[in-house]
């Protein structure tokens, strides 16, 4: 089993928690409280390795950080995206402003993480509000606009709806496959001790603080 860390970032009320809820529970709440701090949860998916002959599915476990979009929690963000394997940067396609916030997040990730292997996925949510057959099309961000930006920055790009579920599963599926590919190449290159190292390389507890500073506590 492979384990990957995934973080959701984006402006508040773009629907990060709803996307996670759709992915994990396959359901949707119309009334969802704003996230305070961040929520941690995990979910497994199965992927089929198309290149190999094996017919067995590979299980991938996502450890997901669903962060609060509120400005005041911004200083905590590095803790969540540090060591992440993938970042979902979410915006609301009915809010132009949320795309520029998303772009800020992309820049921050590129500057601060500096990991070539970090997969960044730009995700436009609330596709259900943009049904063109309906009069109430509330789209504010054109698909092309975001798509061009995503291509420039070399990001994955999807438009989804957490409410209807449209596209949500696919996003996680394709991220899973991509991470799996990267991991497999990595393993092949270190063929000798692949099993052990592959396991360690994903499970190692990277969050241990570099200095265990006992003075920061209260007694």
């Amino acid at each position, binding site marked *: 089993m492979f384990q990957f860390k995934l973080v959701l970032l984006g402006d508040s009320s773009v629907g990060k928690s709803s996307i996670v809820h759709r992915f994990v529970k396959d359901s949707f709440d119309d009334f969802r409280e704003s996230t305070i701090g961040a929520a*941690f949860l995990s979910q497994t998916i199965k992927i089929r390795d198309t290149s190999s002959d094996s017919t067995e599915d590979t299980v991938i476990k996502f450890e997901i950080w669903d962060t609060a979009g509120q400005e005041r929690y911004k200083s905590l963000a590095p803790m969540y995206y540090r060591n992440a394997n993938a970042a979902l940067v979410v915006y609301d396609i009915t809010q132009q402003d949320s795309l520029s916030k998303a772009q800020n997040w992309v820049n921050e990730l590129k500057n601060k993480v500096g990991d070539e292997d970090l997969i960044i996925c730009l995700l436009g949510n609330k596709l259900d509000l943009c049904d063109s057959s309906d009069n109430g099309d509330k789209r504010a961000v054109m698909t092309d606009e975001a798509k061009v930006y995503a291509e420039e920055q070399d990001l994955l790009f999807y438009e989804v709806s957490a409410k209807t579920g449209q596209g949500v599963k696919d996003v996680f599926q394709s991220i899973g496959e991509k991470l799996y590919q990267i991991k497999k190449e990595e393993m092949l290159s270190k063929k000798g001790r692949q099993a052990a190292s592959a396991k360690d390389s994903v499970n190692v507890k990277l969050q241990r603080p570099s200095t265990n500073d006992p003075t920061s506590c209260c007694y």
Partner: protein
Amino acid sequence: MDFLDEQYIENVPTPGAGNVVSSAGLKPPVARSGHSSGSAQLSRSSSFQWGLGNNVSSQPTTSVNMDQTICQISATPTSLTPVVTPSVTPAVTPDVVTSSPSIYRAVLLESRMNDAAENEAQANSRVLDKDDALMESMSQSIYSNVDSGRRIFPFVSVDIPTVFINKKPLTTEDLDLRCWDKNFFILTSAGKPIYSMHGKDEQIISFMGILHTVVNYFQLENSTDIRMIESGEQKFIFLDRSPIILVAYSTRGETSNELISQLDFLHSYLLSSLSQRQVSRIFDKRENFDLRNFLESTDFENLDEICSLISEKFYPDVLLGSLQCLTLNRSYRSQLHECMLQNLMRESDLPRGTLLYGLIVAPNSKLCSVLRPRGHTLHTTDLHLLFCLIFHQFQNLNENQELWVPICFPKFNSNGFLYCYIKFLSSPNYKISSKSRPVLVLISAQKDAFYQLKLLGDKLTSSITSNGLLDKIFQAQPVRIGDIQAPLVHHFLYKSKKHVQYVMPQLQFADRESDSVQAEEYEKKLMTYYQQIHNSVFSDGGIPFNKSIINFFNWESSLGPFEEPNNIGLIQGEKTQMLGLAWITPGFELYLISNNGVNDKRILLKSAKKIISWCRKNEGKIFVNEGATF
């Protein structure tokens, strides 16, 4: 203060004002001119006064002089309609319980003058006539917390009758600020609104301006802070926590001290979200900063939640300044503490100091167990805030979701944030929604300690699951009034001062949850009974009248020729005779309410003794004592 006159002040003479004894030092003399701002029932409340302050002193009292308090609560009966008239004479038995406490009487009056259009002068004379007679016969003080005109008749449960009128606007459109019998306002020292419990923006902004002017006037003219404006039953309480000013308005007869602790609770919430350091930094830079831009929607939701909790629900936590615990067998609790401690010790990878506190909290904000460093405790206010957040904000959670939440605990350290690992516990044997599941909270001062605490949390969870302790928490039964052989007692609150915790039997409506309106009425009614009992032994400033007091409080209805039984929502012909008891010693506080129709104080006193000895005997079961210390 020209604009004050125009909108809010009606220059009504207050003939009774001379008789109103204000709580010493709290009420500046000028305050009366601004007394009526934004209040409900303005003209009516000021139009006549009963002037009963004088009568009170004629009532024999024992060692405690309660004149002030009595005058305060009895100062201004406002309305022409039902008048609830508990009168209070304190009985103080220094330490010795056996001396017979003197008797309290209260008279519940009704007048039929509920027609708002009725001529006031005529009404006054009629009520006063009747009252004079009453005065003579009983020489008691009278006060009213009853409003006239548009009011909702409260539901009367079969358990205890309602003697308080619920003042709630009938419509939700076009509400005047005066419709509400209680309101909270939060503004900046520069006069910018931050929050109000009721009222629309356009109403609030001008009103906050007035509050701001009043506060500044006292600071500039008298270089002192205004604490309270009182007029009849209307009360404004100010709490200046520069750069934030908090104001409470109420006509419900709470003591100043209670309102101040409610304001302090609201202020603590703001700090828990922002921290004092951040607040100071913001306002040092720009004094006229609009804090609303900095607060998030969750903050306003939480403030709404807290306001509703402390003013509409049965939430004695703030009144008593203590918290409730899960009733759990002593041995299970100590096993739980042992288990928490062992797991912590086993976690050798965990650097010392990473974990500050560990808590298991059962639903309804009941503390279950505590893991803490020796010599450190958490302040109850901080815990109340944490519990409010957990049980109101984190409801729609996925089952396997864990949270990492920065919270400032203002009484612990108002300048810094602590980080809480929060996990809702589930047992395979109990399929329950997250609302009624216990919660594990691990608190650290380090913002990146999540994975370490998660590791500890996972191990702790699996050990309390495997040894069955988690199921014991799920199975825990609240105290029921029937568990204690205390005849005639409807409900009680017992606070152990040593533990800073209280216990109470489960509310009776819990069995009939279907009717939420009924439950709400019941909660509010019960809370009001307790507030009045509590206020009978505490001064307006929150100090008990004596170290040891036993005090009876009586609500009685007498149906005279003037009364219409249905006016206050009583069932036709039902008589109200409620007896309350407050018993305070250096070790505990007990407040109890009898069933309706009880007037035998000796039996009630016996029951009170039974409750006390039961609580003492079961201390280990109903309170968390030391917790697990490391």
